[in-house]
């Protein structure tokens, strides 16, 4: 089985996010992906792109996001390339488990979910000032 590769480009806005996500779902459908590995791929896209759109812009600059989806026989590789502020999710600690409803943090779960969904994360800040994040999601026996 050959690998399939799809590139999805969109502006880093809420509207762009929705357009990009719809294209991702179409590409996952076309590749026949389902179950936990598909869920994990959707979750990684959701959390990473939401983070870029919500926190990536500098002084109102326009964000441009390029996502490459590569479906291999044993894994799904998602590469996120954006011109937002440097953001390396590998260095973000998991939030403490909440002790009570009143004390629970309401944020910080996105990166945690990406780490659980991914088999590996690689990050590079390029010389050209772009974030390049590569996330590998396992296909066989995937769990969250």
């Amino acid at each position, binding site marked *: 089985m050959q690998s399939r590769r799809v590139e999805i480009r969109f502006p880093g806005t*809420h509207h762009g*996010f*929705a357009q990009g*996500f719809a294209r991702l779902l179409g590409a996952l459908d076309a590749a026949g992906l389902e179950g*936990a590995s598909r*869920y994990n791929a*959707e*979750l990684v896209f*959701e*959390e990473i792109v*939401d983070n870029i759109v919500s926190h990536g812009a500098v002084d109102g600059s326009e964000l441009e996001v390029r996502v490459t989806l590569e479906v291999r026989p044993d894994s799904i590789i998602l590469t996120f390339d954006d011109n937002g502020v440097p953001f390396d999710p590998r260095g973000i600690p998991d939030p403490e*488990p*909440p002790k*009570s*409803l*009143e004390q*629970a943090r*309401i*944020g910080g*779960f*996105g990166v*945690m*979910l990406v780490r*659980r969904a991914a088999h590996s994360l690689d990050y590079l800040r390029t010389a050209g000032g772009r974030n390049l994040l590569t996330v590998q999601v396992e296909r066989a026996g995937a*769990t*969250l």
Partner: protein
Amino acid sequence: MQLQLGDTVDGVLTVSLIGRLDTPGVDEIETPLTAHLAPRAARAMIDLSQVTFIGSGGIRMFITIARALGRRGGKLVLYSAQPLVAQVFDTTSLNTIVPVCADATAAAAAARG
């Protein structure tokens, strides 16, 4: 994302969510859901059997609504989550602060308790 309001039985409101609790889904549903539950300090059980996806935005929404209800003497209970959605509850430990029940019977008991 759809919100279906069900009956109130023994003081417990039933709500069904249908669709994806991703960022656009949460944006769509959070305000009407909060507006329906919070002002009446509801004891509410939310049927998640037709929710196919949840991300961190959905977790944040449930914590926010559960806290708002708890402060007013109400309570939020979730039930019938699909396995992959339930795994997200487990990963984020949401299920340690908001009751997540297997079915409607258990959820009604938890909401009244």
